[in-house]
Every structure is written in C-alpha cells, then in structure tokens.
C-alpha cells in the first residue's frame, strides 16, 4: 500500500513535465501579442518593441522555452507580464479565497447531495423522489450568474444580511458565493448518488440481506451505502478539482479575489507566465486529487487493495 502510494507520487513528475511542455505551447499559440496589450491601445511600434525586449518576448520561442523550463526547475514561476510581480506571489494571494470557497461549497453540497440522493433512492418512485430530483435538476440547470445575482438582490440588497461582494476573511462573505457555487455541485452529487444507489440496490447481496429479513434501513445504510459511495467519491474528487481551479462565473459575480477571475483576466491580457503557472497548478491539483480518491476507495471498501 505504502509502496503503491510512493510509486504514484513519483509518477506525478513525468506527468507534470509533459503538461508543462503542452501548457507552454498552448499558451504561446494563442493569437494576440502581450507586448501590444501591455503597451496599451495607443502605443507606437517603437514602444511595443521596447516592451517586447523588456518582457523577453523578442527572443525565439525555443529560447523562451529554455528560459521557462530553466526557471521552473529552480522553482521560479517567473513574473507576471501585467503587474511585474512574481507569479508565485500573485497566486499565493488568490489561492486562499478560492480554497475557502471551494471547501465551503463542497462541504455543504456533499452533505445535501448525498443525503437527498440516498433519500430519493429509498423512496424510489414516490413523491419524495420526484421532489428531490426536481430540485436537483433545477440546481444543475440554473445559470450561476443568475442565481448569484438573485441571492445578492434578496439577501444583500433587500435584507442586508450579507455583504454584496468581496472577501476579507469573514464567514459572512462566504455564505452567498458558496451557496451559488454549491447549488450546481450539490445537484450533480444528488443525481449521482441516486443512480449509484439504484445500481447497488439491484445487486444479489442486497436481495440476500432483504431475504434475511433485515430492516430496510439496515440494508440501505449498512449494506448499500458503502458500495454506492465509491463512484460518488470519484465524482466528488473531480468536482473538487474543478472548484479548486476557481469558478470564473461565481468569482466574477461576487468580485471574489480568487484564481478563476485571475485566469480570465490573464487570458484577456495574454499574461503567459501566469497562464502557464495556473494551468500547471490545475494539473497538479487534479493528479493529487486522483491519487487521494484512489486511496479513499481502500478506506471505504477494505476489499480494494493496491499492489
């Protein structure tokens, strides 16, 4: 088990290496010249050329790649073309807000999602099932910006319970954005839990358990729950990976100083070093989450063993 874990950890390195190359190429293939954007809409060519030299964009793509990789091996992500601040510092500023938002949204969407999914499965075909799934489908289909603005209008402008936007570290500021972001995730989890439960409930061992005369509650929570949870955990892991990338829509609506908004701002000004670092970070997060999910399987179902 430990050996497997270590092997997986080491295998992250070649994955990230390949990703770093792809990311570099992808980012530089975007049309648009960062020097022109940094220099401003009314700059003349001489100024733009000067900026190109300042930013090191006058060198060949291959030279730029070598500089980038050389820095990367030294743990240096470079400087933002726009703000000229170290990329690591810019990301460190925006990581906590995104992390808090992701964790808060995830926490309550797991709670509600799994509960409602299982609940609907228990009451398959009855009104409880239909109600839960109608809520879930609405949760998936509601556009986040619409839900966000609606919540702002009601809870922040009308009732004045919560601040409209921003994040300075208070839990109150987390409420509306995490609700908005979590609504979609909770709905996805609920749907997933339901179908996973229904699959498991058709298994032979469930019939056996029922035939033994066990209470339905015991069958559900003791026999079905653990097994039904496995695909749900994969799903949750994936969703958490997405959330950690920062939600563009929710962060924009709530003026959240996180990674999602930073990504969009950086794309629009073609801030190469920032884009490269963010994409690398996203990949790293996904690889780590996948590893954790695999480990979790073994915890949930001790029959799963890794060699």
């Amino acid at each position, binding site marked *: 088990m430990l050996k497997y874990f270590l092997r997986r950890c080491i295998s992250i390195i070649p994955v990230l290496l390949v990703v770093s190359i792809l990311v570099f190429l992808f980012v530089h293939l975007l049309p648009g010249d960062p020097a022109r954007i940094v220099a401003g809409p*009314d700059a003349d060519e001489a100024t733009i050329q000067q900026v190109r030299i300042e930013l090191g964009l006058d060198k060949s793509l291959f030279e730029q790649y070598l500089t980038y990789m050389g820095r990367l091996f030294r743990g240096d992500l470079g400087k933002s073309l726009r703000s000229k601040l170290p990329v690591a510092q810019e990301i460190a500023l925006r990581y906590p807000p995104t992390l808090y938002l992701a964790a808060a949204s995830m926490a309550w969407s797991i709670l509600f999602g799994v509960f409602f999914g299982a609940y609907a499965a228990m009451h398959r075909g009855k009104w409880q099932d239909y109600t839960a799934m109608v809520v879930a489908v609405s949760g998936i289909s509601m556009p986040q910006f619409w839900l966000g603005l609606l919540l702002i209008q009601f809870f922040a402008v009308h009732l004045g319970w919560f601040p409209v936007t921003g994040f300075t570290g208070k839990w109150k500021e987390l409420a509306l954005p995490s609700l908005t972001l979590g609504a979609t995730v909770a709905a996805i989890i609920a749907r997933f839990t339901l179908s996973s439960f229904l699959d498991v409930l058709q298994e032979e061992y469930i019939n056996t358990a029922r035939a033994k005369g066990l209470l339905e509650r015991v069958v559900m929570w003791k026999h079905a729950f653990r097994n039904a949870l496995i695909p749900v955990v994969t799903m949750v892991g994936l969703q958490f990976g997405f959330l950690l990338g920062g939600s563009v829509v929710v962060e924009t609506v709530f003026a959240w100083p996180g990674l999602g908004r930073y990504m969009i701002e950086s794309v629009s000004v073609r801030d190469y070093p920032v884009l490269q670092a963010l994409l690398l970070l996203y990949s790293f997060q996904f690889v780590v989450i996948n590893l954790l999910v695999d480990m979790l399987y073994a915890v949930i179902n001790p029959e799963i063993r890794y060699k």
Partner: protein
Amino acid sequence: MFMLLAILLIASAPLFSQNIIYASDSTTNTLDPHNTSDTYSGAIERAICQGLLGFDKNLNIIPLLAESYSYNETATEYTFKLRKGITFHDGAPFNAKAVKVNIDRLRTGKYVRSSLMAPVKELQIIDDYTVKFILKEPFGAFLNALAHPGALMLSPAALEKHGDDVRIHPVGTGPFIFSEWVSGSYVLIKKNPNYWRGKVKVDSIKFVPVPENGSRVAMLRAGQAHYIYPMPAELLKLVENDPKIEVIKQPSIIERYLILNTKSKPLSDERVRQAINYALDKQAIIQIAWGGAATPADSIFPSSLPFYKKQGPWPYDIAKAKALMKEAGYANGFKVVFLTPNASARLRATEMAMQQLKAIGITGEIQSMDVASFYDKLSKNKKETVGETPFIAFGGWSSSTGDADWATRPLLSTDAFPPNMSNYGFFQDPNVDRLIKAGLTSADPKVRAKAYMELQDYVWPKAPWGYLFVDTLIAAKSKTLKGIYPMPDGAFTVEEAELVQ
C-alpha cells in the same frame, strides 16, 4: 458632570467615517505612472502623484507643480517655473532636480510612456526652481505630454530606494498617500494631511474591482460602495428612482467608428465610403447596441477635445446612399469581411451596422474575436497586401493626451500605418499629412486651431471611416458623496471628494 462632558466629547466626534469605496470594472495593473498604459491605473496614480501640468475636469490644461510656463515661437523650447515649498509624501523636496530625475527616467526609453519624452533633446536645470526642455524638433502638443498621467512626478528618494518597484510603492505630492495594494482585491489611499493645495476632506478611498455590472449596482444600492463606474446603461432604470442615488453623465473623448480598408476595392472609392455613411442609422445603433449612452459623431474627433469643429452628424439617407453606390458602379453591392471584438456591445453594434449596410447591397460574414486577437489581426496587415481583402472593422479611439494631435496623427497619417500606429484602414492623403504636421509643429494655439479645423473640414467628407458615435460616460454615486467626477477620457478625479449627510 464629568460623565456629561465625556458624552459630549464623544458626541462631537465625527458621526460617520469618511472612508469612500470606489467600485469599478477595471483592475489596477501598476502604480508606476511612467509604465502605465491603462486609464484606470493612471487615474489612481493622479490621486497620489502630480505632474508639472494637469487637466481640470473638462480636460483643460492647468499648471500644477509648475507655477507658470513659456515657450518659443517654433515650439522647440519650453520653460517651466516650479512651485516652491512642496514636498513629496516621504519628505523629499520637489525642485528642479526632482523633475530631472523623473524626466531622465522616462528618457531611458525603457518605459511604456517613454514615448511622451521622445521629442526631448535636453533638459536643462536653470536654477533650483526653473527647468527648460529643449526639443529635437517643433512639437506643439508638448504641454499635453506633460499633463499626461505618464509624466507624473515621483519622489526621487522613493525612486532611489525602490527602483522599478515603485510600481507598488508610489510616492508623489498629491492629495492622497498610497497606503496598500492587495493585488486582485483593492488599492487603498489615505489623505495627505499636509497637502499643498488645501485640506483633503476624506480620510481614505478604497478602489475595488467589481467586474460584474449587476453586482456593482447592487453594491451601490446596498450602501457598500459610494461610487460606481461604469454604471451600466441597461440597469439605469433600477437606480433612477432611488432617492439615495445620483447618476452622472459625462460626454467622453472616446469616438467609435467603422474602420474601412481604404486600400481595397471598392472601399477605396470615396463615393462608396460616403454611401456607407449615409446608410448607417447612428441613432438606432446607439439606442439598441449602446443602451442610449452615446451621441452621433459629428466630426473626426469628439467635441471635448481642443480645436474641434462641428461637421455633422452625417445624415441617414438610404436613397442618397443607393445613388452613390450606383454612381460608383456598385449598384448591386459587394462583399466584405466584418471584424469586431466579441465584447457584447461592440459585437451588437457591428451586427446592426451589417444589417443596415445590407440595404445598399454590402454583405459579408462577420468575424468576432477577443480584443487581443482583434488588434493582433489588424496590426499584422501590411500596406502591400492589405488591398486584397476588403474589410470593415469596429474601431474606437480615445486621445489619451487630451489633444487634437493624438486624435488624428495615430489614426489618419501615412506614418501611422500598422504596425507603427493605428491607421488600420491605411487611409493616405498628402493633404492630411501636411495639415497634421502643421498642427504638430506649432505651439501657438491660433496656428494649431487653423490647422486642425481645416483638417476636419477636409477629412470629414472623405469618409475614411463609417462615423458612428461618441460615448457618453455614465457613473452613479451615493448622494452623500460630493466632489468625485468622471473625466472625458474615462478617468476620474477624487481630489475634492467629500462625504456629507
């Protein structure tokens, strides 16, 4: 008795805080004025730093750190007498040496705004409070270059201490002292208690980026922002009846137009370009695509700029447009490519123009892309080959120096062909080049006025563009806030800010 006194003392303290929150759609990129290319960062810098000259809220040039100035007839020598007794926020004195340090920094050519000082051959220190700029060649808009936010004065001590890191440690002479910048979250400035022009009435201003229109309006309505810009035109109805909110409208110096590729057939034909102008229903585009927040263009540059002369608006007349198309030999129309940035308002405006041009037979596909790709594409056109593809592109311009020169030379002169500057339609006319030069090489307002007025008379009927409109800037603020104004260039001034009850 003591109790009562204590209560009275507490009660006499200000009842409400004098801290202002300014929410905007933009994000601060840098606070180094010499390296700033965006209006928003420049406007915040103006609250911290000042230049020898500045603009009042109507974009007239006013002396700031310079007390007075004079220039010679050929516009090659400009002398400035500096104000005495002014110190930077860090205590460094403002004098001729400080000016030289700043101008020399710009003249290294390393900064985005270095181009402002490109005409300077030499800067002489006459005495502690007099400096003289000697220019390489006559440059009539030099005063505007010194009023530009790119020529703000930073403390020489701060420049020495921080080097290029002044971008996060700006120190100037302005009404506000830089306090804190949390990248992506806010910029905070605090009042300068020793401001040389008088008492600053608010304690601090916090600039917060709020990209989403609806959220910005919600912040204002919930009392969590005092001033928002831009106020989205489509949400005006929401705040117009709110007794606590006031809407401010300000004509801008931002003109929008359709760039016509004048090197390509049939757009090279003046009559065709005139026909396009007759076929454009400016009012309809303003109402539908721009939320009504604009006025039809009535010259080649907006009326808030100096030396403006009214020409239009160009009448909307389909019959005349069709007649001109026929005269030019294109009665059945022709095909072009429409290019536009994909920002929703600009895309809508281009689509509407496309629809209207269909009436005179001009059709074609639309290519929309993000702003960076759009300008990348336009600036890669070469004059030798651009004639092969007739295109119509949605363009816009704001003269950042607030002068007529910068509203015409980068857009219409032969020197401004891409990639050098922004004459994306490759409009070329020797008479235009001559008039632009005449305006550039004199500092005498009379001579300049004559050149630019003649230029407007001459260019307007030649229709290098499909003239559209001039933006109206809309901001909204709490009625308790006074003294913050939007400027015609999209910046703002906060020096006189005040909160009243």
